[in-house]
Each structure stands twice: as structure tokens, then as C-alpha cells.
């Protein structure tokens, strides 16, 4: 009985989550709808393709750039973009394209860790605050207010001071600094779901609180929280890359998008591509992710 209620109300209550596909639609109908949706949005298709390429670069960089990113030909140093090197070479003769592709791995790993930390910690905070209510809610939300009062960059820097350098520490620092927004969304979702008929029904038949939490609250809060996670992904790429630019990320010669730009900074007067290319990669990734998050958040549900 609860199952049935959950499905009906869940599908009706989350029109903005993109999961509200009519249950009756066959697989082929859904596919046709998806293709129609994409055909009307060439920008979205480009974004998806680009993000897919970045993911390939992050998990299997050798597919896109088989050469070693840390080995250069000194004779070919500081060559402008051309036929031999699409994005030119750096001050050690290393291919910039290869370094940017391999840089995706570290930068994206850090981003994924950052979003995961923010999602898990912030989600737990919000869930606890919204479910337990009372002084727990009050205390947690005051704490979140404090996190919002300290600029994210400074909070991250304080954490790096304590944890030390490195890609993982940078990722944790960025993640903790973005806990607040997840906590807020999760709390408001939990409060909304708590009041719903199916939670009331579950409680009236004697369902235990943790089962209610797991079976009803979490799945229904997932939509809005995932939209936020995709959006946060773009912000985390920016935050991670600026901390790596400031020199707190992986030590050289490991390529990281931010540190590539920091390296290229010393050669700006003669070699513009050293800064321009990795920065363009960051910007394109963030823009693509934001475009996709906009499509998930509302556009998909509205396009019938």
C-alpha cells in the first residue's frame, strides 16, 4: 500500500526533478522524446559531448592523448600551436594538449571528491535537521549560517592550512566549504516530504523511523539534491582549479588544470597558449556542466 502511494505521489510531487516520466510510456516512446528534446537543443548536445570527452580524458587519458604528459622534447620548447602540436608546447617542450588531457584526471578526481563530501556531509546535516527538528535542527542550521558567513575561499584556505597540500586535501577543503547549500536544500526537502500523505500513511501502519527515512524521504529528496550536485560540480571545478593555481594542489610535474595555468603565467609575454588553453578547458567544462544542469532542472520536465 505504501509502495503504491509512494510511486503515485512521488511521480506527481517532483515535476522539476526530470524523473517524472509517465510510467505508461514505453521504452521506445521515451527514446523518441529524448531525441526530440536533444534535436531542439544543439548547445546541450555539444555540452554533453564535451563533458563525455572530459570524462574519457579523466578515466582513460591515453585514449585521447597517448604520449607521456611529463616527457618533453627540449628542442621543441615554446612552440606555438601548429600542425605538430595542436595547442603548442611548454617551456620544457612538453605537448600542451597532452598535459591538458592528462590534467583532467587530477582535476576531475578532486572535483568528484569535493562534491561527494559536500553531498554526504551536507545531506546528512539537512536530513538530520529536517527529520529530528527541535534543538538539533536549530543547532545545525545555525552552524550552516556560520559556514555561510565565512567566504568559501577563506574557509577552504583554513582547511588547507590544517590538512596540508595535495589534490585530495584541496578537494576536501572545497567540499567542506560547500556543505551549507546541500544542508539547506536537503532540510527543506525533508521537511516537505515529512508532511506528505505517504509518510503519514507509513507512520500510521507502524513503519520504523529509519525505514521511513530510507524508503520514503531519501528517494524523494534525491531529485532536487542531484540538481544541486550537478550545479555544484561546476562550482567545485572552479574552486579546485583556483586553489591549484595558488599552488596548493598536486606538486609539479603532475599536470592539473589550475597548476598548468600557474606554470604558464611566467611565459605569458611570449607564449599565450600556455595559460589560454588550460583555462579554456576549465571554462568549457564549467559552461557545459551548467548547461546540462539547466536541462535536468526543469527544461526536461517542461518539454512535453
Amino acid at each position, binding site marked *: 500500500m505504501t509502495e503504491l502511494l509512494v510511486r503515485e505521489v512521488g511521480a506527481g510531487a517532483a515535476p522539476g526533478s526530470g524523473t517524472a516520466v509517465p510510467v505508461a510510456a514505453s521504452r521506445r516512446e521515451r527514446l523518441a522524446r529524448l531525441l526530440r528534446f536533444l534535436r531542439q537543443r544543439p548547445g546541450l548536445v555539444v555540452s554533453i559531448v564535451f563533458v563525455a570527452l572530459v570524462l574519457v580524458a579523466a578515466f582513460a587519458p591515453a585514449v585521447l592523448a597517448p604520449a607521456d604528459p611529463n616527457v618533453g622534447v627540449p628542442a621543441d620548447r615554446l612552440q606555438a600551436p601548429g600542425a605538430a602540436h595542436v595547442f603548442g608546447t611548454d617551456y620544457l617542450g612538453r605537448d600542451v594538449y597532452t598535459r591538458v588531457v592528462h590534467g583532467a584526471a587530477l582535476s576531475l578526481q578532486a572535483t568528484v571528491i569535493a562534491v561527494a563530501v559536500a553531498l554526504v556531509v551536507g545531506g546528512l546535516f539537512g536530513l538530520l535537521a529536517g527529520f529530528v527538528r527541535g534543538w538539533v535542527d536549530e543547532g545545525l542550521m545555525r552552524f550552516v549560517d556560520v559556514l555561510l558567513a565565512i567566504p568559501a575561499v577563506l574557509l577552504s584556505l*583554513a582547511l588547507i592550512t590544517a590538512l596540508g597540500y595535495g589534490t585530495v586535501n584541496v578537494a576536501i577543503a572545497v567540499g567542506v566549504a560547500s556543505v551549507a547549500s546541500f544542508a539547506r536544500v536537503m532540510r527543506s526537502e525533508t521537511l516537505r516530504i515529512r508532511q506528505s500523505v505517504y509518510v503519514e500513511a507509513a507512520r500510521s501502519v507502524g513503519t520504523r523511523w529509519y525505514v521511513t527515512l530510507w524508503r520514503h524521504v531519501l528517494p524523494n529528496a534525491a531529485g532536487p539534491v542531484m540538481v544541486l550536485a550537478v550545479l555544484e560540480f561546476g562550482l567545485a571545478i572552479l574552486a579546485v582549479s583556483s586553489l591549484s593555481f595558488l599552488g596548493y594542489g598536486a606538486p609539479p610535474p603532475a599536470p592539473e588544470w589550475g597548476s598548468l595555468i600557474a606554470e604558464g*603565467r611566467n611565459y605569458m609575454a611570449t607564449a*599565450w597558449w600556455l595559460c589560454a588553453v588550460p583555462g579554456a578547458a576549465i571554462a568549457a567544462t564549467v559552461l557545459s556542466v551548467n548547461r546540462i544542469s539547466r536541462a535536468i532542472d526543469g527544461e526536461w520536465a517542461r518539454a512535453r
Partner: protein
Amino acid sequence: MGPTARYLLRRAAMAVGVLWAAFTVSFVVLYLLPGDPVATMASGGLDGEPLSPEQLDELRARYGLDQPLVVQYGTRLWDALHGDFGTSIQNGQDVRGLILEALPPTVQISLAGLVVAIVFGGAVAMVATYTRAHWLRQVLMGLPSLAVSLPVFWVGLMLVQVFSFGLGLLPSVGANGPQALVLPAITLGLPTGALVAQVLAKSLSQALDEPYVATARAKGVGRVDIHLRHALRNAALPALTVLGTVVGNLLAGSVVVETVFTRPGIGRLTVAAVGIQDIPVVQGVVVFAATVFVVVNLLVDLVYPLLDPRIATEAAR
């Protein structure tokens, strides 16, 4: 006590609470997370020579780190209440002195960035809500999301690339003269301006739907007059509420912008302090930033009821 006084008192108490909590959070992060702050301090020291256990103990005693955490917390909180954030472990200078010394250039660049943000954000919001051309509105409202998607340090470097190295118009680094302020101000102001544009455009289009706009239109007031004299005056007020976030953004942005343009200031002080794990300086900057955020928000709260009496009465209800 009148309702307004009660409202203000409650806001002030909340501000003090947030500050105390910010101090506590920074204490927990900086003094509790690492196993041994003195060991990290020593390894991050400039002379590079490893310290003997006796020297480490002496350092611990000097910074009060040999005492129980509760005592340390109490002492530091008491000192902080008196504006004393300890001394830098790098050069033994007073942290408050260091921050005050680094403040003027950061205030300068933040004000310049604020001007850019208001001009850019204001212009985008005004034109986007005024124009009748659908494509122009789409383009303009796309600008803020573009501006916040670009890495700030990269925008700064690209501006240097074009205007300093390419065209030779403006200096690339340093803090000499008003020309040196132009590129940093643009770099700092663009993402903040995006926030201003989004908030202002939203409240402007809300204001344009209000009955008083219809009344003005019916009386034959021109479109420009309606936009500037009726809608903007009402829409600017809600935009004031994000001022705290705007100032916080500018202060946080100074970390990257001052590094890119090699300018002195709070941002550079912070980056250098993080580099050598100068814990007292980092804590000082964090609490300072929280203070600025809280004070600006408090000021907005104080000024708001004067500009819009409805707020005070609503809050008192």
C-alpha cells in the same frame, strides 16, 4: 521598547552569535584538525632546519599549546574579544597589525571592483528589462551565467595578456597609480557584477508588474521615466540585501586577484600565511572576513527599516 528597537537588538545579538561561532569554527579547524600544530609550524618554518624536541616544547609553551584545549580556547577567545589574535609565527608580528597594514590596498581594489560590479550588473539588468528585443534580452541574461563560469584567475591573466602584453595599454602587475587598478577591478568586479545583475533584473521585472507601474503608464509617463524613477527606485531596495554577499565575494576574490596582479593586501597576506602554515594569521583573516560580512549585513538591517518602514513593522509582528 518599541518594535524597531527590539528588531535591531535581536539582529545585533544574532550578529555577535555568528561571530563567536565563526571564531569557534576557525579554532576547531586550525587548532584541532592537525595532530600537532607546532610540528607543522616547525616544518613550515623558513630556516628549514629540523627543531629538537626541547625547542618544540619551548615553542609549544610559547604559543600556549601545552595547555588543555579548553584553556587554549578560552584564552584565545578572551584575547580575540580584545582584538588580539596573537602573533605571526613567521616574523612574530602582531596579527591585528598585519591585517590593518594589508587592509588599505584591499579596500581600494574592492571599492574599484564594487564600482565595476554595480556599473556592469546595473547596466545588464536595466537594459535586459528595458529592451523589447527578445534576442538582446536572451544575450544579456546569458552574460551573468557566463561571467560566473569563467575561472577568475584566468580572466585576470587573459586581460593582462591582451591589454598589457598585446596592446601595451595597462601595467600587468603592481599597485602604482590608477592605471594599475583598472584590470584588477574588472577581474574582481565581473563575477560580483553577475550576482548584482541577476538580483537586480529579478526585482526590476517584479517591480514592473506592480500596479503603480500600470498607474504611471496610464497617466502617460514615458518608458524611460517609469524604468528609472518608478521601477528602479523600488527594485534597488531588495538588491541591497545581497550587499553582505557582494562584499564577502570581493574580499574572497582579493585572494586570487592580488596573486594574479602581484598586489599587496589581505589576499596576498592570506596566501603567504597558508603557504607557511601561519595559523594565527589565517585565523585572524577568517574571523576578520566573517566580521566584515556580519557588520555589513547588520548595517543593511539597520538602514533597511529607515528606507522601507514596512520591514520593521512586519518583523515586529
